[in-house]
């Protein structure tokens, strides 16, 4: 069945609805390599999806394609031996307690090409990453008819998906459904020069415990049939909906220039609509969370405003936000094209900004991974790190630098503060370099490094080169790579280009030294202001001949004579970490004079030495705290005139705490 035929049938089926499907954008935004027309029916009794998908795949490479590779993501939840489950932290007994209904799988019942050749027999699971024979998350199909360069071929696939109880943001929980990675989805054929490909090759990784996804852009026409009581939300734009004779309802969606399609269904959703400029916002939320609806909507609008201003335009006309019920909590906080899942708890106080943070983060993914479609399997930092960086920028901008994450009972934490402390607080921040495939973080560090270390070093870069230069880099990156597949080198090239253009060789001929440390290296940064010394010179004591007279001079350090009040003052700096960054050092003298020195930050120890009539009062390395990668800001400064009120404050608090603890214990007696 070709695409036109499919659309004709679709048109007949929806004859009481919209006759013609309006396109969302007049001109294709992307190369639309992988497009799908899918008809799917949800069986809420068996928790299955049965569907037919027509894949329209365009060969944009110069290679002749003889096989297709598909992601069969749901098979990650088929048994305990899948790579996803084997890599997960779940203990075996956790699997043993799962009943049959908890597991999920997907299978292709039949696949044929547009000539009607049945390709089903040529299907075979294989494991490109780990050779785990139990893993069935990647499938290849040998083609009878090759696909030549420039050709577009259609393939018809009949599939059945058994939904798992919600795991990794997909499946069902009671009558709530979140359908993600629910259909056989073609991998990405990377032709020579795309990312790291030295020759044309499929990039189709297995589903790993810590990995997300990678896909080509396309147009999705999806026809969803569910029990009529269920309210549906999905990627793209609703074209029409029809009641069917069998007590079901069919929704027809179209999403253009996207890399994926997700949807949700539940009879309990409240639907709240809003609008931001050209975007129709639709919030699907359970009644118990409705009190927080305004927070999601406000955050969504703020985010789109912020991203539009600082990254690029949001080109889609829809945004669907889903706040899952608490029993479906495993589906919260996930991003799909024009469709995100958020999180709320009933009665969540305003001072805990989880709804806003998750909304901002997932909306950030509309740019970093959805439009700038990096490979989440291989370079998770490119989407998660960038999104974390922008989430912090946005949250700190709207909710305060020191209160964006939490602001309750005087306890305040900002967005960037939280991100930095998550990195600096790692038990082993050297556990891995950031540049690593998602499944390569075998002993931890995936989240802290991909999200938080990257968020921290992007903010460090921003502070070093200035916000204007950073914005220029991001905008250039977006404009150059939207609807494409960039990799690390592509971003670094833009940084080098823009920084050189804006700052010349102030940071060196390239910024590679920076990326070698933060992206490809594991070294940590820690500068310490080790000591301040002020030594009096001319400590004259004894009998001196002044003119013809002999004069006895007794040196008194506390009251030196004016002529003797010359000090050699030193500031001694230590570099405790391996990583090096150029830093400023600000020295303040007793008379209020301040000197700012620039230091390359390379030596293990370094001193600034001054001779003068005034002692050094204090000194601070990196006074503007540009180098957020520094593990400890507290040891960056010293003062000879410490203000210790805060020590007394916390000592009093500690004393009070201990006394109360003792009184609480005594209450048991």
């Amino acid at each position, binding site marked *: 069945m070709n695409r036109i035929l499919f659309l004709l049938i679709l048109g007949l089926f929806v004859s009481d609805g919209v006759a013609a499907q309006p396109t969302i954008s007049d001109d294709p935004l992307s190369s639309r390599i992988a497009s799908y027309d899918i008809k799917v029916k949800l069986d809420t009794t068996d928790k299955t999806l049965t569907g037919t998908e027509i894949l329209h795949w365009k060969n944009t490479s110069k290679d002749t394609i003889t096989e297709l590779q598909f992601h069969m993501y749901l098979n990650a939840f088929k048994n305990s031996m899948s790579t996803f489950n084997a890599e997960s932290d779940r203990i075996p007994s956790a699997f043993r307690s799962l009943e049959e209904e908890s597991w999920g799988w997907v299978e292709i019942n039949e696949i044929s090409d547009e000539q009607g050749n049945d390709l089903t027999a040529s299907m075979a699971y294989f494991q490109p990453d780990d050779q785990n024979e139990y893993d069935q998350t990647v499938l290849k199909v040998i083609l009878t008819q090759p696909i030549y360069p420039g050709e577009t071929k259609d393939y018809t696939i009949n599939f059945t998906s058994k939904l798992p109880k919600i795991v990794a943001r997909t499946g069902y*929980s009671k009558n709530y459904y979140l359908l993600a990675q629910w259909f056989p989805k073609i991998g990405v054929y990377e032709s020579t020069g795309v990312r790291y490909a030295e020759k044309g090759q499929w990039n189709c990784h297995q589903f790993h415990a810590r990995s997300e996804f990678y896909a080509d852009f396309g147009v999705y026409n999806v026809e969803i049939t569910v029990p009529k009581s269920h309210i549906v939300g999905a990627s793209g734009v609703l074209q029409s909906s029809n009641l069917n004779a069998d007590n079901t309802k069919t929704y027809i969606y179209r999403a253009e220039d996207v890399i994926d399609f997700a949807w949700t269904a539940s009879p*309990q959703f409240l639907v709240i609509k809003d609008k931001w400029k050209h975007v129709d916002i639709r919030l699907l939320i*359970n009644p*118990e969370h409705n009190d927080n609806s305004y927070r999601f909507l406000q955050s969504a609008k703020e985010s789109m405003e912020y991203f539009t201003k600082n990254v690029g335009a949001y080109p889609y006309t829809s945004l669907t936000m889903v706040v899952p*019920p*608490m*029993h479906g909590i495993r589906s919260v906080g996930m991003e799909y094209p024009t469709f995100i899942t958020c999180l709320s*708890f*009933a*009665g969540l106080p305003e001072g805990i900004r989880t709804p806003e943070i998750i909304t901002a983060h997932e909306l950030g993914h509309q740019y970093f991974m959805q439009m700038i479609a990096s490979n989440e399997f291989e370079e998770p930092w490119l989407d998660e790190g960038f999104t974390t960086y922008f989430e912090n920028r946005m949250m700190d901008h709207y909710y305060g630098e*020191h209160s964006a994450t939490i602001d309750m009972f*005087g*306890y*305040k*934490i*900002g967005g960037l*503060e*939280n991100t*930095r*402390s998550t990195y*600096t*607080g790692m038990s082993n921040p050297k556990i891995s370099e950031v540049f690593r495939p998602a499944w390569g973080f075998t002993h931890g560090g995936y989240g802290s490094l991909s999200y938080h270390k990257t968020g921290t070093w992007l903010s460090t870069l921003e502070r070093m080169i200035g916000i204007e230069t950073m914005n220029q880099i991001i905008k250039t990156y977006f404009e150059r790579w939207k609807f494409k597949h960039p990799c690390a080198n592509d971003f670094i090239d833009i940084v080098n280009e823009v920084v050189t253009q804006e700052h010349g060789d102030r940071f060196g001929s390239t910024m590679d030294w920076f990326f070698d440390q933060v992206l490809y290296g594991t070294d940590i940064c820690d500068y310490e202001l080790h000591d301040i010394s002020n030594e009096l010179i001319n400590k004259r004591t004894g009998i001196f001949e002044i003119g013809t007279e002999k004069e006895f001079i007794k040196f008194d350090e506390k009251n030196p004579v004016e002529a003797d009040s010359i000090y050699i003052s030193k500031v001694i700096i230590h570099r405790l970490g391996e990583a090096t960054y150029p830093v400023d050092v600000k020295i303040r003298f007793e008379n209020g004079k301040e000197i700012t020195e620039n230091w390359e930050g390379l030596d293990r120890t370094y001193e600034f030495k001054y001779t003068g009539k005034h002692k050094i009062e*204090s000194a*601070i390395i990196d006074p503007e705290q540009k180098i957020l990668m520094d*593990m*400890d*800001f*507290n*040891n*960056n*400064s*010293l*003062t*000879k005139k*410490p*203000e*210790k*009120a*805060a*020590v*007394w*404050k*916390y*000592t*009093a*608090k*500690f*004393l*009070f705490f*201990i*006394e*109360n*603890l*003792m*009184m609480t*214990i*005594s*209450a*048991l*007696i």
Partner: protein
Amino acid sequence: MNFLVGYFVGIWNTVRRLRMWLLLYFVTLVFAVLLTIPFFDVMDQSIGNSLELPKLLPGYDHTVVDDFLHAHGKKMSAVIGQFKGFTVFFVLLYIFLTGGILQTYDLLSEKFSRQRFWSGCTTNFWRVLRVFLLFTVIQVLVALLIYYPLGEFFGKGFDGINDERTFYKAGAFAVGIHVLLASFFGMISDYTKVRLVKKNQFSVLKETWESTKFVVRHFFKTYPLYLLNLLTFVGLFALYVFLGRQIGMISKTTIVVMFIIQQLFIFLRIGTKLMNLASISAMYDAVVLKSRKQEKPLEIEGMTPVASTESTNTASTNLADNNPPTSDGPMEILDTQSDSPTNDEENQDYNEREFLENLDQFQEES
């Protein structure tokens, strides 16, 4: 005596024993200071000369605190770790002191005597210790009884329920029940201690049972009184939080002011503990006395029976002091607390005159 009168008698008797109150405060303060000195040292030596430190003055600064904990967390853990060792010692010390408190409240007509206080600490140590152990077990069982089913309920996840509000309600209900039950058993524990001392008894189990009967029989006097004492603490805490928010610790002056308020709070918190025992002691005395007045004159073996109403003018009947228990058993006094008191039912050392004097004085002054 209704519970309100008992409450004010408790306050009055606490105030009257100011020296004991101060003693307990200073014991607590000294212990806390011993643990706080290392904290001060760690903080002062690690970031005391940093320019980041003043950022902590206006309020919480996450970066400063977090960097401090990352860099010096092990030292801080060691400081906190010391508390674990201190806890055992402190518990034993407080058990020891509680014996003195109980002894003091048993002899309210007399001036506070350090000698008697310390003597009470020694004499009653094992009694209080055994009560503590017994009721620790009971409180653990109560907690298990409440939270194990709750845990099971939570463990089932969302089977049978739709949303998290059910969890909230279940949690709030469990905590509410726990507060009521824990305070109920705490109250029995306190009455048991009071009885053990007043009657110079050693059988913790027996006195626990008698105390249970006592508080159940006089539930609407004893339990409201106990809850009122508890609410006094809650009120004090709320007041502290309010003042803390109004004043803050954002300058040298406010640090000093808040330090004084904090220490005043601790002093008053100790006061609420004393007040609780004092009011329980008074309530116990009042109930027993009332029963005696209504039902039988005071009878003491080997002495001429006198009507209890007259006993306020008689010589001291502090039997515990004047007639210590012998190998034949303590001097018997009619137990009038039960519905059908007999000479054999109860043995008690009860200072009736003292209590009445105390009550009269309170009523006059109030």
